[in-house]
Every structure is written in C-alpha cells, then in structure tokens.
C-alpha cells in the first residue's frame, strides 16, 4: 500500500447535537438514523468513495464504545481509528484538531458527522490543488429544489436560521469574508482593504456551510501554538479569512524582525508559519492578483442536488425524506429492507420504506414512507405514515402515527393517535393518548444536558 498520503481525513463526531436535544439526550448525534444507516455512515462513505484509506474519527469518550461498535458493523474497508475526547470539557472542533495534531503529517480534510451529500469530493480537492490554497471550505447553494414541503414534528416554531454571510471573488471564488448576520446591526461595514483586494465581490447569505474544510498542514501547526481558538468555524476560519487582507500578505514581511507592538510578542504570527512551509508558493505567478499571497482561502460552491447538514430537526427530517434520492451508494432492495426483518404486513410499501434487522411488523398494519430501525415491534391494526422509528421502538395495537419521530426504545401504548410529534428515547406514551405537534419527553432527562 502506498505510504505517501496527500490528505488525511478527520471526521468530527463528538458533537452533542445541542440543536436537537430531544433526540440526542441519550444517544450521540452521529448515530441518529438517516435512512437505515447511522448519520456518520454518509461522510465516511463519501471519503471511502473518494479513495481514502484511512480516517480518524473524533468521538466523545462517553459514547466511544457505542460509536465504534456501530461503525464497525457498517463494514468499511478503510482504516478507521477512533480518538476519544473528554465529553465533559466542552471541546470545540479546533480543540479536537489540536488534540490530534501530532498525528497529522499532511494536509487535512475535516468533515462533520452530520454532512450528508453526494458531491464529488474530488472536485473540492481539485479546487484546493488548483489554487494552492491554504484553506478550502465547501458550500452548498440552496437556491433551488425546495419543493419538499413538510411539517416538522414537535411544537410549531419558526425555522429561524442563523444566517452566515459569505463574501467571495466572483471570478476566482476566493473566500474573502466570513461573518454572521448577527455580528451586525443595521449596516455591514466593508473595509477598504477588502474592496481593494477584490473588484467583483459576491456576498451571499443563502449558502449552506458544509463544515467541510481542507487545510494546509501549517494551519494545524498554527492551531497547536495558538490555544485560544476553540472552534474552526467560529474562530479559526474567520481569523484566517480576515488575515488574508492584512498587509503582511503583500509580501512585505521579508525577514524583517517583528518590530511592531508589544502585544504581538508572545502571539504566534500566522505569517511566519506558512513561510517556512511553502516557499514555493512565493514563486507561483499563475494568478496575478494573488501571486505572493501566503494565505489563500477559497470557497468551493457546489450546486449539488443533495447537500444537507442534519444538525437541526428541520434538516434531519428533510434528509430522511430525500435520502432515497442520494446516489452515494447502491440502495438495493436488500439494503433497504433487511432480510432479517419479519414483515407480515399486507399494506407495506416496499419502495418508500426502510426496515432494519430483527424488526417485526405484524399483520394488518399499514406502513408508508417510513424509516424503521432494528429490533422494532409493530403490532397489528396500526397505521404508520411518514415516520422515523429508531431502534427498539415498540408500537402497540391500534396506533396511528403520522409524521412522527420516535426515538430509540420508546414505547407507544395501545390506541395512541400521534401526529407531528417527537417522542424522545425510552419514553412511554400512555394508552390512548392523542397528541398533535408535541414533543413527548421525560422532562427530567432533558434537563440533565
């Protein structure tokens, strides 16, 4: 096997899923089912399809064994190594990356476990190679194809998005501005250095940040020396993007000792590091406007049909509805409906459902457009439409479920009628309950987080 690597891959799977606490109270986010696979399957598959043979997965230590067990069952051919990080210390993505910096010897590609997409990873990598970029970030344009309309389970709430504002050169798609709409009040100042740098700047607020980053090795070095940065998106990225405009970049810092202000003394200068690493980039004169720039960030904007980050309830539901369209892997019949499942139902729509192994679906049930996990038992005289049933769910007789998410090991007692509801893990819905647009959870457990 080839020992020389161009990129090392890191999958961030230690996220707590703080935006969907109802579902992640007792289960790590990366194991939430999408289709019939845990969420983390998709980024890993993306990497494997692109030819990666080794991947590091950052996991929270309290779930490390669960995740390892489940991921091992997915049967990846590539080498997976799990790096546990302390779950009680609230580490950010930068912290995690710093933690493993000793193991990173090449440029690195960082993915989030909730990234589900079918883009060609090579296109993103090529953007990186072509521009000799310091950093490439992948964005999805979300403009088209919002025809998939549905109601999100749980109480009706406004799907309020945190809007990011991305500014990039329209021609070269060099990334020059990263900001959050909440940083500003009424006006957004654009500095003259930014305007001078780029004469044709596009500002977008409707792009979806995939949290996939490819970066040069020296950025990790910088990160390991600069301990104050906790997250990639929140701190490192905006910093690196902003530093591009700093005057250092113009190649003035030619070996001149840092005579500037006192506060710079102990701070590692970000421009010293790349200089040691890629002297060659000083000589590339391919693109006049950025020749000599040591720091070059690019945005890769993809017009993919599926590009979702399943980190909110809305996106989680959405990806579950459109997962069948994902052409990442071959979704053959065997894969969709486990042969180990026992299906006695006569009104079962094979094409629109996923069923996990050891699940028992009794006769006289009607099941449509639903994802059903493993070890579930669905008793007779029930009707299930547009639902997500995680592992070990028991649904007793005469239940009607529509557009619900039922988390693992929950029990729906007989005669329940649930519509647009979210039932959290291990919860037992009492007999005959009728609920609409509700989150059903054992409150005390939710408070723990």
């Amino acid at each position: 096997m080839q020992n020389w690597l161009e990129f090392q891959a890191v999958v961030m799977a230690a996220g707590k899923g703080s935006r969907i606490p109802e579902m992640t109270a007792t289960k790590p986010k990366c194991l939430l089912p999408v289709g019939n696979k845990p969420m983390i399957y998709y980024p890993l598959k993306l990497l494997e399809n692109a030819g990666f043979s080794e991947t590091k997965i950052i996991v929270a230590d309290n779930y490390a064994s669960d995740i390892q067990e489940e991921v091992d069952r997915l049967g990846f051919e590539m080498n997976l190594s799990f790096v546990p990080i302390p779950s009680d210390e609230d580490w950010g993505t930068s912290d995690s990356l710093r933690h493993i910096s000793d193991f990173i010897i090449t440029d690195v590609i960082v993915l989030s476990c909730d990234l589900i997409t079918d883009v060609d990873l090579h296109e993103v990598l090529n953007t990186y190679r072509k521009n000799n970029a310091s950093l490439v970030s992948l964005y999805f344009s979300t403009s088209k194809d919002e025809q998939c309309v549905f109601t999100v389970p749980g109480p009706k709430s406004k799907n309020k998005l945190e809007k990011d504002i991305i500014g990039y050169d329209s021609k070269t798609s060099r990334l020059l501005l990263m900001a959050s709409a909440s940083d500003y009040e009424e006006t957004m100042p654009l500095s003259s250095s930014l305007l001078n740098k780029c004469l044709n700047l596009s500002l977008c607020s409707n792009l979806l940040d995939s949290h996939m980053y490819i970066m040069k090795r020296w950025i990790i070095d910088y990160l390991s020396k600069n301990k104050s940065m906790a997250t990639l998106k929140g701190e490192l990225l905006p910093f690196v993007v902003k530093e591009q405009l700093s005057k250092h970049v113009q190649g003035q810092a030619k070996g001149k000792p840092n005579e500037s202000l006192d506060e710079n003394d102990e701070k590692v200068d970000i421009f010293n590091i790349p200089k040691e690493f890629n002297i060659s980039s000083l000589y590339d004169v391919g693109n006049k406007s950025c020749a000599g720039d040591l720091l070059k960030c690019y945005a890769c904007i993809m017009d993919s049909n599926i590009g979702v980050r399943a980190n909110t309830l809305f996106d989680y539901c959405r990806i579950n509805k459109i997962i069948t369209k994902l052409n990442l892997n071959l979704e053959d019949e065997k894969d969709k409906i486990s042969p180990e499942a026992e299906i006695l139902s006569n009104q079962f729509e094979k094409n629109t459902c996923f069923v996990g192994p050891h699940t028992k679906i009794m006769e006289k049930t009607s099941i449509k457009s639903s994802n059903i996990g493993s070890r579930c038992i669905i008793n007779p005289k029930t009707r299930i439409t547009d639902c997500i049933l995680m592992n070990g769910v028991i649904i007793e007789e005469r239940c009607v479920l529509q557009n619900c998410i039922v988390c693992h090991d929950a029990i729906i007692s007989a005669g329940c009628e649930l519509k647009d509801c979210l039932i959290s893990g291990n919860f037992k819905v009492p007999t005959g309950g009728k609920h609409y647009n509700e989150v059903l959870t054992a409150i005390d457990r939710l408070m723990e987080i």
Partner: protein
Amino acid sequence: MSSNNTNLEKQDILQAVVVASFFHKNFWPAVDKDHSCFVPLVNKPLLYYALNMLDSSDITEVVIFCSSSTADRTKSFVRDTPGFHRLNVIYTSSDTCRSFGDVIRHLDSCALIRNDFVLLWGNVVGKLSLLPLVKSFKDLRKKDKGAVMTLVYQQGDADTGQTLVLSSQTNRILFHNKKKGKINLPLELVLNESVKIRRDLNETNIAICSTAVPPLFADNFDFQTKDDFIKGLLINEEILNSTLYVHVVQDGYVNEVFDWPSYQKVTHDILHRWTYPQVPEIIGKYSLRYGNIYFGDNLKLALTCDVGNDTVIGSDSKLGNGTRILKSVIGKNCTISDNVTIENSYLFDGVTIKNNCVIKFSVIGENCTIKEKSEISDSCILGSGVLIEPNTVLQQHRIHSSNLNNKMKKLNSKAFIYNVENDSDSDEEQEVNGLTYRKRSLTVSSCSSSDDDNSSIAASIPDDTCMFYSEVVDSLIRGFEDHVHCDNLILEINSSRYAYNINYREANFHMIRAMLTLNSKAELEALNQVRYYTQLLSKLDYFLPVLKNYIKNIDSCEDCLSAIEDVAKGEELLNTVVVKVIHHLYDVNILSEESILKWHKKEEDTSQFAKNIRQKTNKLIEWLKEAEEEESESDEDDSS
C-alpha cells in the same frame, strides 16, 4: 419580426438623445469650453463617434442637445458628414442649462420624448448594439414596472473607485457609492438575496431610459448629475417607486472621453483597434501600415523621416528630414520641418512646427505655430492659434492665444500662460482643471506614485486601538500647535473613544502614551536631555486640563503610570527623566501618592526594565512616604 417598417407608428420609433454639451472645460484651452464635443479624437470630432454608434445600431431618430453657441456648428457637422445622412436629427438647445439634470428637464419641457429612449453623451466611443439592450429593457419593464433606467457599464480590470452593489440575479442597483474607502452596506440587502459588489465597472455614459426619467428629473430639482439621480432614486426608493438596473458590457468596447487621461487612453485603444469598426481607416481615409501606423492621403514625407508605432498622420501633412514621430496623432494640413521629435503628443489640424523642435506629452491646438528649437513637454496644452517663439522651453503649461482676463503671463503677442494658482475667478472650475492636469502628469510620469497610494491604503488598516491612538496623537499635536482649547480636545478624544469603542482604561493608557510621544523621531535626536524635559513639561502643562479630566481616580492613575513605564521602555530620553515626570505629575495633583506607592510595590512583572525603573523611583518613594508620615502625624495633631 413580422411588423413592417412602413407601418410603424411614430410612437414605436426608437429615439436616442445625445447630450453634446459637457458642462466642463477639461479640454480648454485646446478647444473652447462649449465646443468640447468637437475636440478631435484621431482627427474626427468626438461627437462623430457617438453618432456613428447610433447609426450602426440602426437608430435614426436622434435628438441632439447642444448649447446655442454650438448649434450651427453641430448642424453643419451632421449635414456634412457623409455617413450621417440616414439620421433624422432634431436639434434642441438652451442657454439656461447648467448641468446634465437641466438638459433632461429641458427635454421634459419640450416634450420631445415619446417612448423609451437611449440616452448617451456625445463623448462616447465604441461599438455596442443598442437594440438588444432596448429589447431587454422592455422585457424588464414587464417584470418590474418601476424600472426606469438601465445603465451600461463596461467591465474593466482596474479599481474604478466607484462601488456598485448589484443583485446577483437581476443586476438591479441596490447601493451606490463613489467614495474611496470603506462602505457601510445595509444588512437587509445582503440577507434578502445574494449581491455582487463591483468596483471594476467603468462608466460609459450610455443608458436606456423609460419615459419616466424626464419627469423624475423635473420633479427633483436637486438632481444635477447622473450620480445625483442614482443616489436620489436609491434613497427614495419607496417614494419614487423607481428602480435602476445595470448592463455590463463584457465583450466589445465602450468608453467615454471626459478629460485628457481618458483622451490618451481612448486614442491608444482606437489606434490599437479595440474600437473596431471605429478605427481610422474605416471612419476616415487612411492606409494602415504595420505597427498601427495610419497614413492619410496626399502626404509629403521626407525620405529620412522616421514614423514609429501607434501613429496617425492626417492628410496633406508634410514631414521634414530627420523628423521622428512616435505614438502621436498628427492632424490634417500640418507642416513639420526638419529634425523635429514628437512623442506621445496630439497635434490638431494645421499645426506648423519649425526645425529642431521637441514635443513630448503635449497637446497642440489648431493652427499653432512653433518656431525653431522650442521644447514643449510634460503635459503642455496649447490653445488654437498659439505662436511659440524660437528657443522656448515649456513644461506643464497651458497656453492660450489671447489674454482672457489680463491675469495671464504674456509670452508673446499670441501666447499667454494660464496660471492655475492665480486664477481666482471661480473656485469650482479651477478645481476641475487642476485635477485633470495632475491626473495627466501622473499617468504621464510613472505609476510609482499610484503604487504609493495603494500601500498607504493597505498600511492604514490597523485595529481600532491603533486607530484610536493615532487619532489622539493627531488631536494633541494639532491642539498644541494651534492652541486649541483643552475642553475641545477632550471632546475630540472622547468622540474618538466612542468611534473606536475603547474603554476608559485603555483610553487613559493610550492618551498618556500619545502625550509622551508627541515629538517626532527627528526632533528627538536634536534635543538634549534638559531641553527635552522642558519641552515635555510645557506640553504636559498645556494639557493639564485634559489630564485632569481623564486621570481622576486610583485606577486611572495606575493606567497613567503604566503608560509612562511603557513609553519609557522604548524612549531613552524619557527614561532618563522618568522620575522627574512622575514627580511633576504628582506636584500638579494628577497622580496621587497612594497610586505611586501602589505602582512601586507592584513587583509581579519581573522584567529587568520594570525593576530598573522602580529602583530609580526609590528616592521619590521614600520622600513620599516621609511626607505621608508627616502628614498623618499632622493629621493626628489636628484631630487631637
């Protein structure tokens, strides 16, 4: 197209409005103010190019606005130019118009506009098919009833200094800014849709307008220029309910000639054939030679004359022996004698140049005569009919053939130097001319100065604290020199503080730092220790009210002391007198003894310098302690 031309009603005929009056005298004295649109560009009047563009776009209904003094010349020009017989021209003129806005208001009052129209200035050069633009504008009007104008811009690759914010999808103008430097974009623009921020768009002075445009100008008397119009429409979008769009010309060539630098650039582009079909051998009778050399008819060239690249020589001209011409345009009927050098210059028709002259980077007006061994260089502009005596050396002068206001320096009976500084007739015009002149010399000399500009812009982006610090330094220096009242200085510092969001303690620190470092490096070197101290004292005393305002409590004293320490660290002279300075500040009741003692005790930072400076102050501290004891004793005495 099924509609038949003959059946077209008058309503449907596309009109074009050409504004052939520029309201500037950028080309003076080479041409008279009102005749700017007749300045010869590659031996054709400037207006020719705009009309030619209309003609080649099959627009025949043309309204030409010109000032009344040029109306006859315009009419005869259009009538006598063979290519323009198709044009059906309506002339309109007015003496009261003082700006572009006035022209449009004049058009409104004359009711000459019947339909959507193409508006262009008489200084437009290039080729652009206008009909597709008009068509897409009509389509646009169906979608957006409020669309009143599509402005045409040419894509460039240099910074134009003008910022346009366009909607990515529709190219609608959302924001417009002509100033350099940072801009404040309303956040809602960005959140609603994705936008493009363009700084690479060059103006072309072509616009497709709806019939709503003239009434808009009529309703808003403060619209003087196109920029006023854009600005006004954007600000009052809800009230006026009018929207503006942009069309960017990607391929093809459109440019405008508004001053000498742009004149130079466009001439160069014409000679290099970017403007095809507006190239010399198509619009005039020239034969093209290798190296973009265009020869007119009936030339008399001496055998030994050397005609270099990028040169046009108008018909019936004569070139003498040993004459060199490079990158220049020579008009018709010019007589150039022997051993003349002409580089990067523009000679209008009928110029006579005698032996051994040198002409570089200059414009020579019609029928000028330049006598032997004269040297004219570096952006000289000669008006028509000027006579230059032998052996004259001229640089960066503008010369007119008659003395206009008796303030011009006389060279001879037919040459008067126009002096920018002495001319106090009208400030406004002076400014326009001066700017043009400087621009020209900039482009002519080298680009080094513009590089400097860039670097200074790049250098001027430090963080807020540094900005605050430098502003305070500025305020203090100016305050000290101009004897500004300290209360005003306090106000200034406070406003800087709010502007850069600096908290009190940081402000104190930087204010003291600034005060102690007011002398420049050079000044410092010239000063010895004693004089430095006296100077410093005088400054500190002057700023005493400022100090009193900021250094009020223990915390601020602490900031003050740490600032002194900080400056002393980098400034040897201050270091030598630091004890005196602290003592002085104590004497004038700025620093309390409590704070000095506290500062002295603070030993946690162990740098050598901090120790040294504290050692130096030991004596002061002892003295202070004694004084304190005495004081407390006396206090006790009082109380007992």
